[in-house]
């Protein structure tokens, strides 16, 4: 192959043919994209990823030396467009490929990249993040899980939570404290740990909509090889920042490592138009105005992602500009949930005999409304980032700045 990248149009034609020959078509009778993931999906999606890998369409924006295709975001966008009517390994997009793999590409050692990055791209393994802890969500750097160096190993003790899809993953990138005498940001390390180990007790957390995709983990003397350290010891914050960058990008909808998009109809992506038609309000002028507005907002959300991605790629915008995507990607979907609830009316709270329960899903979704401004960093943190890192306004006072971590006051 020459150094010249294949043109996007040539690639698109090749992808179209390959998809049609190799990937299963979406089944109209099957339910996709619900907030509960069936166990079979994990088996299927691993197989689908292996299929993509074998066909040369996995990890389109990852370098070839780690199993990717070394192509551009435009190629990825074309592939996603072509893949909409096929089953795709969507469950592996976030966090495994877009967040953990993105971080490992930038910060991992050659050996780690060959093992874990290649593993994730080839469908051999699934990665997840062990970041948040019960002691505090936004104040990530105040985490308490400790890793003690012991010869060629680290011994890990502590507790993590909010780890999405951990139950289905093989390895996690785990942020731990390795130095208690350093100020909080300077005593952290990122270590790759196995998810399923006798020293780790993992349980799933049930959310208000009934989903159980988040997990919490308790580590009691979990032993991992010292070679699993990503970057250098006590420089875990730098590594974590990189991972958070990919998280914001993925949650904001602008990740180049996400392949495929959810099918249009399904629990969490019902359109406002569908709801309006379902309750027979589609000819009502007031409803039409609301639907038109929501459609405009959804369009603007996409346009914003595109613009900020361009700005960050060209260097015109700082990396923290991604916080604007993050903020809009909470506000606009929340507005949509409010609008859908209003339009769905009484059918959002009680199902109808013989109905498919479709409109009640609008009500259930509404229960999880605030999830959009909490997951992947709260909107309040985004607003701090935008004001302090984009507008360069003075930073908030922090009582733990430059204080040895063991002296920092903590709640009970």
């Amino acid at each position, binding site marked *: 192959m020459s150094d010249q990248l294949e043109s996007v149009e040539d690639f698109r034609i090749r992808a179209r043919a390959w998809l049609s020959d190799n990937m299963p078509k979406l089944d109209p009778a099957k339910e996709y994209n619900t907030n509960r993931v069936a166990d079979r999906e994990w088996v299927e999606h691993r197989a689908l990823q292996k299929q993509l890998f074998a066909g040369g369409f996995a990890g389109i924006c990852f370098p070839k030396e780690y199993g990717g295709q070394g192509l551009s975001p435009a190629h990825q966008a074309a592939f996603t467009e072509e893949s909409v009517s096929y089953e795709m390994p969507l469950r592996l997009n976030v966090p495994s490929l877009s967040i953990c793999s993105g971080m490992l590409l930038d910060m991992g050692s050659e050996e780690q990249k060959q093992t874990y990055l290649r593993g994730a791209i080839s469908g051999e393994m699934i990665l997840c993040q062990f970041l948040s802890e019960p002691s505090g969500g936004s104040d990530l750097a105040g985490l308490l899980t400790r890793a003690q160096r012991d010869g060629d190993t680290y011994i890990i003790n502590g507790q993590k939570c909010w780890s999405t899809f951990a139950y289905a993953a093989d390895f996690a990138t785990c942020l731990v404290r390795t130095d208690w005498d350093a100020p909080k940001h300077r005593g952290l390390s990122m270590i790759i740990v196995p998810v399923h180990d006798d020293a780790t007790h993992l349980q799933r957390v049930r959310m208000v909509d009934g989903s159980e995709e988040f997990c919490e983990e308790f580590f009691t003397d979990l032993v991992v090889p010292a070679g699993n350290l990503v970057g250098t010891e006590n420089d875990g914050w730098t590594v974590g920042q990189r991972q958070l960058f990919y998280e914001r990008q993925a949650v904001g909808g602008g990740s180049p490592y996400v392949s495929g998009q959810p099918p249009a109809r399904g629990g969490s992506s019902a359109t406002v138009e569908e709801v309006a038609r379902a309750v027979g309000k589609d000819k009502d002028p007031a409803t039409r105005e609301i639907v*038109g507005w929501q*459609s*405009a907002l959804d*369009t603007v959300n996409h*346009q*914003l992602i595109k*613009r900020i991605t361009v700005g960050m790629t060209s260097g015109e915008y700082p990396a923290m500009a991604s916080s604007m995507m993050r903020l809009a990607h909470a506000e606009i979907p929340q507005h949509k949930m409010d609008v859908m609830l209003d339009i769905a009316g009484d059918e959002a709270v009680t199902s109808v005999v013989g109905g498919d329960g479709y409109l009640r899903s609008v009500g259930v979704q509404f229960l999880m409304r605030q999830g959009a401004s909490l997951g992947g960093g709260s909107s309040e943190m985004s607003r701090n980032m935008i*004001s302090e890192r984009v507008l360069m306004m003075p930073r908030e006072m922090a009582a733990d700045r430059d204080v040895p971590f063991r002296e920092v006051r903590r709640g009970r």
Partner: protein
Amino acid sequence: MDLELSEDQKLFRNTTAKFLDNELPVEKVRAINKEGGGFPAEFWTQGAELGWAALLVPEELGGGSISGNGFQDLAIVAEEFGRLVSPGPLLPVNTVIAGLVEGAAIGGPDHTETIEGLMSGELIGTWAAYEPKGHWDPLNPSTTATKNGDNYVITGVKDRVEAGDAAGVFLVTAKTASGVALFLVPADAAGVSVELVDSLDFVRHHATVTFSDVTVSADAMVGTESATADIVERMLQVVVALQCAEMNGAINRVFEFTVQWAFDRYSFGRPLASYQALKHRFSDMRTWIECCNATADEAVKAVNNRAENSARLVSVAKAYIGTKSVQIIQDCVQMHGGLGVTWEHDCHLYLRRATTDRQLFGTPADHKRRIADLIGL
């Protein structure tokens, strides 16, 4: 605010900004307001020399743009107008030109001379689309054009006609026996009378124009009757996208000086910019502005490229920017405290311009309903 401007376009933006800043800084705009508003004729002819009325005209008719993307270039001018609340008939003249160019392309009567006059800046044209008490409904006029031999007789009242007092020619939407048509009517034709009305904008004038049995020849028609809806659609997209660019220029400028104010103004021994409650509001505004920039760029690109989805993207931009721009400016007024609602402070100049752009050629509510139509609800 397009992040992907060519070098030519960046240069064009700089020279436009410099020219406006030299000729009509905000103090001069205030002086014009004091004298009753409108615009200095020589300012507009100078602008025309810079190409402000030639960007939508094809090369074979003497127009053109350096970048080859005339509408994008025009939107740059509109944005700079918004940044300095500039006077001048940028929107009406270019909207009329868009209509005439469209009419010429489909083989209607020849209006080359009018196009040349408009390009030179000597002739001012404006679209007489609105009618008294009517909401925005350009394809349903009550003004009539009655065929009389080789002529048409036009009768009716149009209002909210921008720069109606300065116009030498009106582009009039009128009902014919078989549909709706567009006619070019000279301001000095017998039976035309113009009455200035009060405008919210700081300098721009609007007028009510009465057409009492005004006779024009059949050659005054723009395009053909059957193409009227398409021509009106093009004109609508042009004027609305320019409004969006102008509102965008206004909010970006207001936000800049308001952020600066937040750094400079101290209370309780701290700058306003250090209060988290205010920082978060600035972050919201910054995000909305980024959304406005994004959607304005996409609308402008779509109109420039005559994209298939341009109607929807223009309405998306108008609904969004029309809604957010005035909210942002009002929030900036709040950040200035009582100063923000004084005549002396510049906030109201921008609020007047943005509100005017917001309300005319379809309110955000009108455009939201139009989006519902366009997405097939």
